């Protein structure tokens, strides 16, 4: 463990970290030589205490607002998408009802985040001209063909789950925001699970829970599990959606956090395959048991496929 590496990493997301730790910032910056000698043995216990104190008092700052506004943009992408569901044909009544439920949740998330952000919230995006669900013509029937529509829905939900998960450590400083983010995160995961069930059973099924999963789960007519298995064969539209299941970019990640591919079978240095005490599990179970987070940059790149300007998400 390198104490100064940690602070340096935090500084990337929180430029005021030195001030939080000690108003006499030069003291911290200048004790590097001595500190590095101390770091290996003595400092780790103190690190937790220092950070707890520094961050427990942090108000909703610029960094937390940035994260929340990014989440809000993703919620708009989803909310407007589900509001467009009425032009989709071929869905069972059961599945249309499910999409209405999800549409309500996403609209609620939008208004919740706007309330939390208050005057710091981004402007409301126009309902036309900001998002392009055809991804510049890649999916010409995005809002009419039920199979394509659900393929995109799964892609958005799985991306949302990875985005909230990746961002959770960035909002730890504010417990209220953290709990709210976690409480949205799990709802997105519930949506993802159900959309996957709908795709498994077929767009016009009246019993979406009874579909049979068929490997490799990919493609617009794929029959995925409710959880992500390996990289899910590239997702609902291999060639376009692969990044949703791939590894993220660790360049600006907080220390101790890496954005692995969904196929990983190692967690925190623990090899899940050899760690598990019951033998005979299929290899797929070890990647399925854990979802992975993504960094803001990678999420933005995925979401920008559906941005008219190409950079709405930054």
């Amino acid at each position, binding site marked *: 463990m390198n104490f100064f590496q940690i602070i340096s990493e935090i500084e990337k997301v929180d430029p005021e970290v030195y001030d939080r730790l000690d108003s006499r910032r030069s003291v911290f910056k200048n004790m590097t030589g001595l500190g590095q000698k101390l770091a290996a043995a003595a400092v780790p216990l103190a690190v*937790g205490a220092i950070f707890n104190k520094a961050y427990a008092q942090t108000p909703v700052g610029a960094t937390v607002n940035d994260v929340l506004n990014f989440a809000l943009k993703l919620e708009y992408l989803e909310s407007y998408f589900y509001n467009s569901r009425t032009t989709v044909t071929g869905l069972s009544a*059961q599945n249309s009802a499910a999409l209405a*439920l999800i549409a309500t*949740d996403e609209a*609620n*998330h939008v208004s*919740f985040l706007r309330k939390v952000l208050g005057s710091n919230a981004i402007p409301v995006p126009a309902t036309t001209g900001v998002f392009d669900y055809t991804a510049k013509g890649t999916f010409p029937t995005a809002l009419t063909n039920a199979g394509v529509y659900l393929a995109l829905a799964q892609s958005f939900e799985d991306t949302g*789950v990875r985005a909230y*998960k990746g961002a*959770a450590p960035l909002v730890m400083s504010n*417990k*209220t925001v*953290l*709990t*709210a983010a*976690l*409480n*949205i*995160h*799990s*709802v*997105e*995961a*519930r*949506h993802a*699970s*159900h959309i996957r*069930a709908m795709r498994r059973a077929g767009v016009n099924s*009246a*019993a*979406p*829970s009874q*579909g*049979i*999963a068929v490997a490799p789960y990919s493609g617009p007519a794929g029959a995925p*599990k*409710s*959880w992500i298995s390996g990289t899910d064969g590239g997702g609902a539209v291999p060639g376009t959606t692969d990044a949703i299941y791939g590894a993220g970019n660790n360049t600006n990640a907080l*220390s*101790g*956090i*890496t954005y692995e591919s969904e196929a990983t079978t190692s*967690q*925190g*240095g*623990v*090899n899940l395959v050899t*760690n*598990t*005490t*019951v033998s005979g*599990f*299929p290899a797929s179970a*070890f990647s*399925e*048991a*854990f*979802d*992975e*987070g993504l960094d803001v940059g990678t999420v933005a790149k995925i979401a920008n496929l559906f941005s008219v300007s190409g950079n709405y998400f930054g």
Partner: protein
Amino acid sequence: MSTKLIPSSQPQLSDLDKPLYSPIKRRSFFMYAGATAGATALVLAGCSKSDSTPGTVNVGSGDPGVLNYAYALEQLEAGFYTSLRMGTYYTGLQPGSAEKQILDDLYYHEVIHRDFLKTAITAAMATPIKALTPDFSKINFNDRTSVLGTAKAFEDLGVAAYNGAGQYISSPTYLYIAGKIVSVEARHAAIIRDLVSENTFVGNDIITLTSGSNSSVATNNSDANSSLERSMSPSEVVAIANTFLAEGSKLDVSGIK
């Protein structure tokens, strides 16, 4: 800083699925505790309250306390999905049927979670709680309604528990790992709820739709029409979890705060 919780040479642990039926004897506990002043200090440091309820399993405090709390819940879930495989509801499922596929995967996932957390706690230089003895006497493993109803309760409880405990974790690494588990639990919960009744993957009983949250989770007072998961505090969670645990295995989470 490495993300590794343990060195790769960590020995494998093989006693996870065997419940510990003999609690530590009071006399030997004091023998160990009194061995040296240092040992006494360690024992006291691990106890959040000197008046923990006798016969309960105290998960401890700090990040190891939250990890042990999660380990306890994963033990309960893994024990449940292991037990249901013996019942005639499960054994009667058609090979390749949706319900068998789903229940098999849930069994794998929860056992993997349980074994992972035990290793992670050891790697955090903390002591994992014992193997808990469940009390599944209220569940009829031969009956679909009973099995799926209980699965729904456990999965929803797991999601509410992880969400409610996130604020008590101080290490970003552990928070991130908890996040990796909780979304899988939420995926489980959604499909189990759909198996019980189609299109109930969300609902006002678990997310704030038509009414707000009145949980005792300190930071979770969301209003109606916000569609946030109704997360639960550790004490709210164990009030339910303890009804599925035998005497001597009931949880004390008073150290998590």
